Each structure stands twice: as structure tokens, then as C-alpha cells.
């Protein structure tokens, strides 16, 4: 992997483009403010296609906020003011002329704990398809099976597809949420500490899924678990107090950290 690192000086913040890959998301001078505090400070970076990019950093450093900017879930929070630009496949997502639902369907979202929709397992996956206008029952059924298999859930639930998804165990629910997100055929998977509420076995299943999925999807994973980052990351963006401190290919970040904060973080983290 050619790791051409170019350093740009932009308002005192060191920004390094990650690697010479096809960019899928370009973030340019992104600032987020909330009631007098500056949550994200001049974030500019590029996220490459079909890689796992890990947003790493201590709690409260703005990782989740950055993730939520990407599919404009920040719209839900009235106190957040977002400035700057994010381009996904070259399209500015803050362009008011763009249909936000279509942009969001490009991205599957996995949250800290699973939120299954209040309907059956089958309908949970069919829901997104129906929003996209798929009406053919045969296609929907095939898709449901395909994506449940994709997350290794099919064998566990195939006999009770019509039962409420909220009765599944939390690990199964999280895998269902992943399958639900994949069913709308996104290009990107946004995952916000997806295994923080899970037992070790379910969380390993999710991690294994990510490794399998990265050939078809771009995965952006927020985590503060250093070991998880080391297992999964192709690229790492290390954040601290709303700024990107260091970013680059995983081996460079973990083997050869430049900044003192990152060195400290790697030493203390386990």
C-alpha cells in the first residue's frame, strides 16, 4: 500500500491525507458548535473507499459528533451548528437541494446499542427496502434471507421471522441492525462503538463481519477500545478535544506515533 503522506498546514492543525486510495468522503474545514462550545475544530480529512477507517480517541473528543455529521443526524439536535463541507462521492451533503433521505440511504448506521424497529424480524429488514420502493414480495424475502445470512443470524432466527425483533438477545439485535442497514445497499457503514453493549462473543461476530464486509463497503468505526482499533483498522484518525491530532495508515499510527498525546494514549490504552 503506497502511503504518500502529504502534510498541509491549515490554521495550525496538521492534516495528513490518509493514503493514496479512492476517496469516498472528503471533509473540508468542518466545524461544529454547541451552545458556546466548539465540538469539532476545523476537521479536514479524506476517508478512502473499501477500507476500515477507525476514529480513535478518548470519550468526549468528538468522534461520535463527526460520525453523525456524515449522515446529517446532526439535524436532529437543535443546539448543534454545523459549518464546512462534507462531500460523499463528490456530492456536498449540506447542499439544501439534495434529498437527505437518499444521502442517508448511502450509509448504514450501527449505534452503541441496538435499536430494532418495533416490528417483526422480517419487517425490520423489509422496512428499508420498502422505503426504497421495492414492493415485490419475492425479492424482499430473498433479500431478508441474504442479509440475515450475511450477519450470521439466519440460522438462529429463520423459524421465527415473524416474531418481534425486540425479543432477540442484544447481540442478535445488533446483528439484525447491521443486516437492516446492509439491506438498503449502502456504500458506507457508520458504526458508533457498535460492540460497547455486547458480550465478547457477539462483539467478535460483529468484528468478523466488518472484516468480511470491507471488500464491498467503506466502514467508519468509532471506538475508544485500542485493541479493537488494532484488530480492525486500515486507517486511523486519532482525535483529541475536537481536533484531528494524527491520522494515517494503521501501522504508522500504532508503530510510529508522532504526537505526544497519541504516544501517551497508546501507552495507557490496552
Amino acid at each position, binding site marked *: 500500500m503506497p502511503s504518500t503522506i502529504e502534510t498541509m498546514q491549515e490554521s495550525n492543525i496538521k492534516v495528513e491525507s490518509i493514503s493514496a486510495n479512492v476517496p469516498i468522503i472528503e471533509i473540508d474545514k468542518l466545524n461544529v458548535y454547541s451552545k458556546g462550545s466548539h465540538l469539532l475544530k476545523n476537521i479536514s480529512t479524506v476517508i478512502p473507499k473499501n477500507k476500515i477507517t477507525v476514529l480513535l480517541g478518548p470519550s468526549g473528543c468528538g468522534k461520535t459528533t463527526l460520525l453523525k455529521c456524515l449522515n446529517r443526524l446532526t439535524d436532529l439536535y437543535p443546539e448543534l451548528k454545523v459549518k464546512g463541507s462534507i462531500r460523499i462521492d463528490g456530492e456536498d451533503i449540506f447542499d439544501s437541494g439534495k434529498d437527505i433521505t437518499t444521502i442517508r*440511504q448511502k450509509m448504514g448506521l450501527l449505534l452503541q446499542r441496538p*435499536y430494532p424497529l418495533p416490528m417483526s424480524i422480517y419487517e425490520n429488514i423489509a422496512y428499508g427496502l420498502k*422505503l426504497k420502493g421495492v414492493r415485490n414480495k419475492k425479492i424482499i424475502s430473498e433479500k431478508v434471507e441474504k442479509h440475515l445470512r450475511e450477519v450470521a443470524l439466519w440460522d438462529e432466527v429463520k423459524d421465527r421471522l415473524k416474531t418481534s425483533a425486540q425479543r432477540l438477545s442484544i447481540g442478535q439485535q445488533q446483528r439484525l441492525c447491521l443486516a437492516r442497514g446492509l439491506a438498503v445497499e449502502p456504500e458506507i457503514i457508520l458504526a458508533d462503538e457498535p460492540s460497547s453493549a455486547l458480550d465478547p462473543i457477539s462483539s467478535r461476530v460483529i468484528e468478523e463481519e466488518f472484516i468480511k464486509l470491507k471488500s464491498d463497503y467503506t466502514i467508519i468505526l468509532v471506538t475508544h477500545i485500542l485493541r479493537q482499533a488494532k484488530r480492525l483498522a486500515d486507517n486511523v484518525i486519532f482525535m483529541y478535544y475536537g481536533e484531528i491530532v494524527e491520522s494515517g495508515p494503521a501501522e504508522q499510527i500504532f508503530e510510529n506515533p508522532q504526537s505526544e498525546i497519541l504516544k501517551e494514549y497508546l501507552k495507557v490504552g490496552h
Partner: protein
Amino acid sequence: MTFRRKYEEKFFRGLSFLFTAIIVFVLVQIIWTIAKKGVPSLSWQIVSQEPKGGYYFGKEGGILNAIAGSFYLAVSATVLAFVISLPVALFMNIYLIKYQRLLIGIRFFLDVLWGVPSIVYGAFGFTLLMYLGYRNSLGAGVVTVAAMITPIMIRAMDEVLKTIPIGLQEASYALGSTKTETAYKIFFREALPGFATAILLAFGRGIGDAASVLFTAGYTDYVPRSFSEPTATLPLAIFFQLSSPIEEVQNRAYAAAVILTLIVLVLSISARMLKPKK
């Protein structure tokens, strides 16, 4: 010090126990009084017949007019209130969620409306129907009772919707739902068990209220056959018949009280049992 704290603890525990006992005693007394006077008058005739010879003087017949009237009125008013409350409650929690200050204002306003005495709604309904040149009728009663219970229903639904985690909202939007889809496909289903409680609460309030129907629904000996006819109701059946000098008529009032109490009791118990178990 420990001595004082020990007695302080004993004193306040005793006080709480005392007042709880008083409340329970009063409740049991009320139910006992109604039951003692009303249960002996309960009969098949009471619940299956309209009063004969006028509700005030006639010794024969029953209170079917009031039972049927109350159900027609409360069911119609609840349906009407639901049709109005559902969009309002969803609108507050999906669209207005960005404007927290406005929401606080709206909730305060609805709570004030909740506290307005029902006679005021009755007077309002009466003024409205005079203005429209309409007369005392089931329809006018339905509108008045609906106006009275709508704020209750909106706030009860609102409380349920408020508990829905923002994560579910994010999940819904992330799948590409619009706000309307999130409201009616996700929030509605998630809140459904809680909504049942809200509906029963409003229904209970509607069926038990006398003052709002006093000027608007009228009173009659017959089961109404259309919304433009006046209707009898259980609370008014108690009110009017209790003031009669004839004992048989008074007994009908107590029977009506037993039936109304039973209905409200069953409603609140089922509302409690329907509460989501999470």
C-alpha cells in the same frame, strides 16, 4: 443524635402510614356506600329498560337510556379526540423537538387546559351550540367532551412519545425514512401500548363527567338514534334521579352510580395492566 434520627424515622413512617390508611378508608367507604345502596337495586330490568313514565316520577323501568347514551357519547368523543390528539402528539415529538422552548410552552398550555373545570367546557360547548343555532344533542355533547379530553389525551400520548429513545429516531432516519414515516410507522408502533393507556384514561374521564354534558347533551328517557337527538348520560342520571322524592327513582340513581363506578374502575385497572413492561 442517633436517638433523634431513630424517632424521626419512626414518626414520619407512622405519619405516612396514617394518611395512607385514611385515604384507603375513604375510598373503601365511598365504594361501600354506593354498593350498599346501589347493588340491591341492580337488576336485569335496570340495565335493559328505558325509564317508564318519565325518569323523574316513573317508578318502572331502568337506566338503559343513560348506559347506552354514556357509551355512545364517550366512545364517539374518544374517537374524535384520538383523531385530533395523535397528529398533535406526533407533531410535537417529531417536528417540534427542535424547538424545546416552544414545546415547554405547549405542554404548559395543555396542562392548564387539563386543569380547567369541566363546567367551563360545558359553558363553552353551550355558547358554541347557541351560536350555531344547534340544540342540546348527542353531537353537541360529543364535541364538548372531546374538547375536554383532547388535552388529556395529547399529554398522555406526549409522555409516552417522550420516552422513545433518540437512538430509535436516528435508526429510522438512517434507513432513509422521512419525518412522516418515522412518526406513523416507527413512533406510532413503538408507542402503541402506551397509547392504549392514554385512550382509556381519556375515555374514563369522558364517561364520568357530568358538568360538560349538563348544558350540551340534554337529557331524555330514550336511547338516542342519531347525533342530533339529545341523550341521557350516567352522571346526569345520578344527578337528576337522586333529587327525586320517589324512592324507586333514587334507587335507580344508586344503581347508575354502581355501574359508573364499575366502568371507571375496570378502565383504570386495564389502563394500569396495559402499561409497557419495560
